[in-house]
């Protein structure tokens, strides 16, 4: 088990989710400490991405409980989970391609209360003023992520790496309490990978709790305090990478699992 310090922000207990005859997640149990950077690893088909979908509300568990900050969120619609402060990224970055980079940023601030038709018609001045502040923050963030000169371009025209950076910039604008990253290194070139590591560290230093699904094990080892290993829909072990290396079951699952993948 990981270090006992800090309370559990996310608790997953005996969660099951199957698709037809396939048990993608089969009784997974683990918890994530507040303020930690936790890696979620495992062979292909271990159920990692399904786990992310279940926690973020994009799928509902068949049974079991998922608690975020003490609140049951299993089966809750994705937008509600997001508004509770638990947000996620996707394997391929999902931006709003036809909207500009700046509009993508403005949509990422937690401003749901401003999005009423009534306010859009009758409080246009105060909306403008509030948005002016958001724009200043957004420009600073875009500058930090090297995207400022592209602020008026449609986000769909960015390169793969730039889209990944924009995704990070949007998460930084949203400032959620917890972030689930689904393979943040996928489709990113080696130079940017190093930078991604720093940016993920920045998220934690800014107070977010981060769970990262990742196949690049050296990257996980360098970055994460705690690592959770999944195989066949279950949570096999939790610990630091060096602890896990001594874990016979983990080694078997990884090497055996690769051959066993359908």
């Amino acid at each position: 088990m990981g270090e006992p310090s800090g309370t559990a922000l996310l608790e997953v207990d005996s969660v099951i989710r199957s698709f037809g005859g396939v048990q993608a997640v089969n009784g997974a149990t683990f918890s994530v400490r507040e303020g930690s950077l936790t890696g979620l690893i495992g062979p292909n088909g271990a159920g990692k991405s399904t786990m992310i979908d279940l926690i973020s509300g994009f799928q509902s568990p068949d049974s079991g409980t998922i608690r975020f900050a003490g609140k049951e969120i299993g089966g809750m619609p994705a937008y509600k989970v997001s508004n509770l402060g638990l947000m996620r990224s996707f394997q391929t970055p999902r931006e709003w391609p036809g909207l500009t980079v700046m509009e993508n940023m403005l949509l990422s601030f937690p401003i749901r209360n401003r999005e009423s038709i009534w306010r859009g018609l009758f409080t246009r001045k105060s909306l403008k003023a509030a948005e002016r502040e958001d724009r200043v923050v957004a420009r600073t963030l875009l500058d930090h992520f090297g995207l400022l000169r592209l602020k008026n371009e449609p986000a769909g025209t960015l390169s793969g790496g730039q889209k990944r950076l924009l995704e990070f910039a949007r998460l930084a604008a949203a400032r959620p309490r917890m972030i689930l990253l689904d393979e943040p290194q996928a489709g990113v070139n080696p130079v940017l990978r190093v930078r991604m590591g720093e940016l993920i560290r920045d998220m934690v230093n800014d107070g977010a709790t981060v769970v990262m699904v990742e196949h690049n094990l050296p990257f996980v080892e360098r970055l994460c305090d705690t690592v959770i290993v999944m195989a066949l829909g279950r949570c096999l072990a939790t610990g630091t990478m060096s602890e896990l290396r001594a874990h016979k079951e983990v080694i078997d699952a990884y090497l055996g699992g690769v051959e066993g993948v359908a």
Partner: protein
Amino acid sequence: MSAYIISLATTGVIFSIVALGLNVRWGWAGEFDIALFAFVAIGAYSYSVFNLPPSTLPYPAGYILGLNAPFWLSMIGAMVVSGILSAAVGALALRKLRDDYFGITTLAFALVLTLIIGQDTTLFGGFEGVYGMVQPFSNLEPFGSDGGYFLAMCVVVLVIVFLVLNWLYKSPFGRAVRSVREDETASQAFGRNVYLLKLKAYVLGGCVAGLGGALLAAYITSFNPYAWTPQETFLIYAALFVGGTGNAIGAIFGTFFVFVFIQEITRYMPTIGDNASSPDALRLIAIGALIVAILWFRPQGVLPEPRAKDVEDTAETPVAPEVQVTSG
């Protein structure tokens, strides 16, 4: 001004309002709605029965209400009724269905409504339809009898609709609706209730379409049950495609192009053989060819959706040294 020019302009202005309604649904929210003209019909009918005195049509013909309400109140009533029915249809069709399945459901609604309007004589006046309204301002000299003042009112309504929609388009609400069009999943991941945003856009579009229907009924002073075919919706799509989906000015331009220019130019096409309806058929063929040509050569339309420019209010800050990012 000749009555001919006035009638062309009035048609163009009224259909522009209808096109702005479709632009909210399809242009902002990306809802492939085929029922739009059903809500124009609902607006036209509601206007008629709010505006007319109680029915004196011989049974089985007839209509409900007959409130004798002034035209402006009847217009508001038409918007409200269209909005409520949009909410009902949208709540069903938008809940679980995506894109084409949503489109098929709205088509089914439009067909069912067309049949009901055509069949239910006690509600919709039967063969003759609901008629006998007085066109607003038509008694006002010197231009009322030509429809000049009515045209002026339609232009005022168009300007108001245009301004209100333009505010909403640029507001956080409009941006959130457009985000749903661009990527629903991303909108959910960033806390948007996608269903509710789509439903709001559907109702807003329905209100505008209903207002257009009310003006249409006020203009032609009757409600003909046989004039409301789902085919009309595609003409409005044609107008949006030509003008530029998502661009309000484009929608108005496209409407005048399709509903006035094409309409009038095809009037002078020769009839083929002794088939008197061939110009009508040729007009639809021309509009069909126009849709294909536009989608092929200029899918964004003549006036593409404007891009929201972020301009700094203070003096331009120097561009920070760029982080070299190569494509991934």
